[in-house]
């Protein structure tokens, strides 16, 4: 009996050994293209949405397999940088924030997509110019627009009504007045909470506030920093006033965007200036105590400014980029994925998750049905200011963060902080 079992086992082993090369040979005839994709953990197009898109792509192209890596925003840049240092890219397609456009474009970490777009994207003009501008450096398009994020002005209509206001503020003075009245009437302790922790979100809020005062461009046409004059200086003074007068929650100095959104959704704040994801939170009963009370609108602006748009927002666009050390054999497939994920057809399937980059989709009946605030969104999108596109943006941003934070907290007088900011940036660029 033992001999029989042994001989059967021997036979099976021999058979499997003989057949193994056939299996390998079979697999070798249909080589699988593996694309490595780096994406960010975030609201809007979440990791789940991305995986759904990936499955649809793999269904369309069965010989391609997508390998996703999802990282928090804070780790994205360093991951792309270290991938670029390797002989062959660790990630073939990466999600690229518009603030990295200058660095990636000038240092050549990602590939210009102009030729791919010219050949394959027939309706490129359907993406607003304001979005394209965020990804252009010296005429080269460094990423295909994927995510049209921008800030909106949110207010709690119940709190405003209690304070005696029937409409949101249209000017900066009116906004300040409404906050003062809300605080004086003790409807809430702090009418406003923003994301002023020393991080990139603070720069976004500073640029947007400068925009509300008429000019969100922190560098002039000659490329010189201008934070110590005009609208950027007024913005810094305004932010300091909000903090010093107790109109902004002191926690703003350590809050990021989700924290500020949660404070608004919990009914603790009358106003919130934040990215589009707040719309979903404030209307979700499991996350919000103000369902039906939160309203999205255009930003208040200083009188006589932003005449064309009557609002001023900040861009937070993200695109899909192809890394420069992606092997040549993979590039056509990398582009196919970029084109697929950014296509109007795919974006139209995910309107509940994210505002599309395509104008025709954004103005479609489907979008208006899903998002009654679509016209407001469009106005704010048309009114975006971009953060500076410079090669060493992250160093410039670090200086801005430090001095804006100190100016708001009052550790340095506003004018001195603005002057120091300009001097340090000039020294950096010298």
């Amino acid at each position, binding site marked *: 009996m033992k001999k029989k079992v042994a001989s059967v086992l021997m036979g099976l082993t021999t058979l499997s050994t003989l057949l193994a090369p056939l299996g390998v040979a079979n697999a070798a005839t249909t080589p699988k293209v593996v694309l490595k994709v780096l994406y960010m953990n975030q609201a809007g197009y979440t990791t789940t949405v991305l995986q759904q898109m990936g499955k649809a792509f793999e269904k369309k192209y069965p010989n391609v397999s997508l390998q996703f890596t999802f990282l928090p925003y804070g780790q994205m840049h360093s991951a792309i940088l270290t991938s670029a240092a390797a002989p062959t890219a660790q990630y073939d397609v990466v999600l690229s924030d518009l603030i990295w456009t200058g660095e990636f474009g000038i240092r050549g970490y990602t590939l210009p997509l102009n030729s791919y777009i010219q050949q394959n994207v027939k309706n490129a003009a359907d993406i607003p110019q304001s979005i394209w501008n965020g990804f252009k450096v010296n005429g080269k398009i460094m990423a295909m627009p994927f995510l049209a994020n921008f800030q909106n002005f949110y207010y709690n209509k119940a709190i405003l009504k209690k304070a005696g206001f029937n409409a949101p503020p249209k000017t900066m003075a009116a906004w300040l007045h409404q906050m003062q009245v809300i605080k004086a009437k003790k409807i809430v302790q702090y009418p406003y909470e923003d994301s002023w922790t020393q*991080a990139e979100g603070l720069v976004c809020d500073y640029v947007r506030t400068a925009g509300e005062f008429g000019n969100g461009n922190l560098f002039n046409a000659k490329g010189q920093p201008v934070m110590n004059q005009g609208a950027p200086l007024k913005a810094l003074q305004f932010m300091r006033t909000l903090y010093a007068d107790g109109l902004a*929650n002191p926690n703003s100095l350590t809050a990021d965007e989700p924290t500020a959104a949660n404070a608004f959704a919990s009914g603790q704040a009358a106003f919130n200036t934040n990215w589009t994801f707040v719309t979903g939170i404030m209307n979700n009963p499991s996350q919000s105590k103000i369902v039906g009370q939160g309203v999205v609108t255009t930003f208040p602006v200083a009188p006589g400014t932003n005449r064309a748009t009557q609002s001023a927002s900040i861009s937070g666009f993200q695109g899909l980029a192809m890394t420069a050390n992606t092997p040549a054999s993979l590039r056509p497939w990398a582009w196919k994925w970029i084109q697929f994920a950014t296509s109007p057809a795919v974006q139209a399937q995910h309107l509940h998750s994210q505002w599309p980059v395509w104008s025709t989709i954004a103005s479609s009946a489907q979008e208006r049905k899903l998002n009654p605030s679509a016209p407001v969104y469009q106005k704010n999108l048309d009114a975006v200011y971009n953060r500076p596109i410079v090669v060493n943006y*992250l160093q410039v941003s670090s200086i801005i963060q430090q001095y804006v934070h100190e100016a708001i907290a009052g550790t340095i007088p506003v004018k001195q902080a603005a002057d120091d900011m300009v001097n340090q940036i000039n020294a950096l660029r010298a």
Partner: protein
Amino acid sequence: MLSSAIVRVVERVSVSLGTRKSLLSRMWHRFFSSLTGEYLWFYLLLIPSILLLILVVIIPMVFAFRMSLGNTMVTILGGKGNLSMQWVGLQNYIQILQNPNFWQAFRDTLYFTVVSLLVEVTVGVGLAVLMNQQFFGRKIFRVIVFIPWAIPTIVNAMLWGMVFDGDNYGALNDILLQLHIISSPIVWLNPSPLFTNIPWLSSFMNWMGGSVAMNSMIVGDEWRTLPIVAVLLLAGLQTIPNEYYEAAKVEGASAWRQFRAITFPLLGPIMSIVLILRTMQLLRAFTLIFTLQQYGLPTLSINAYQQAFSFGNFGSGSAISFLIGILSLLIAVVYINRLYKEEMS
């Protein structure tokens, strides 16, 4: 056989070069001579560890040092990623040492290190002495004290983030508000100055790196690391013979006198080891601060990381890392010298 042959070859080469009496030659001779005797296996068994050390410590260290001497950045050449290291000599070091932000980061790190060590020496010794006493439930107490050490650093950081949340739903604010100790929430993680009612002290502390946020970081870090310090000190306490205390009691020494004359001096050697270990860890502190503040409290390690991985200046990042290493080394030398002196005396 082989080793003795090598020795002979080395001798011949040394003679031919006329450097037989040189120090180098003597070292070589001693090394290869030792291969012939009982140390042969000793060296053979050491080879894998030495190779591993060379591979994962020495080579990366030499590479990082080379990076610190260059304008090191990521470049793409012919579709291949690379690190270009244009030689700049000591320029990175000079620029860093001339940068006021570096010195602020240095003071921040020093404040974090010194205050943490003070807490560890005082509270740590107190805890160790307490755990060394005979009392009911001592074993359970020791286990409870040790629990925070078992928590991963990143979890500890997230946990303290919730405790220190600046809104009134932050755990600490909530408790203090309910006890009516504070009337409105305190923003614990904001780097606001201390002692604001004494302007000169406030500005001095601010210059030194002391702030509300920094103190919060110290509390969060100490909560996790104090247990291991206390346990190491407890091990030291248990080596002190009980007879010393009995003799002191007979002589009528008070508890404080016993602590001052017996416990503290005899804890010296273990204390020095703890201080060396902790100083090195504290100078490199990163996870807790980065998780809760990102670049808002730029200590030296965070400065190094930001230079390398955010700004892409791998040369400057490496240079700062080496400066941290040199600083740690200097402090370690001071401690070790002190330790030897204590042992000699």
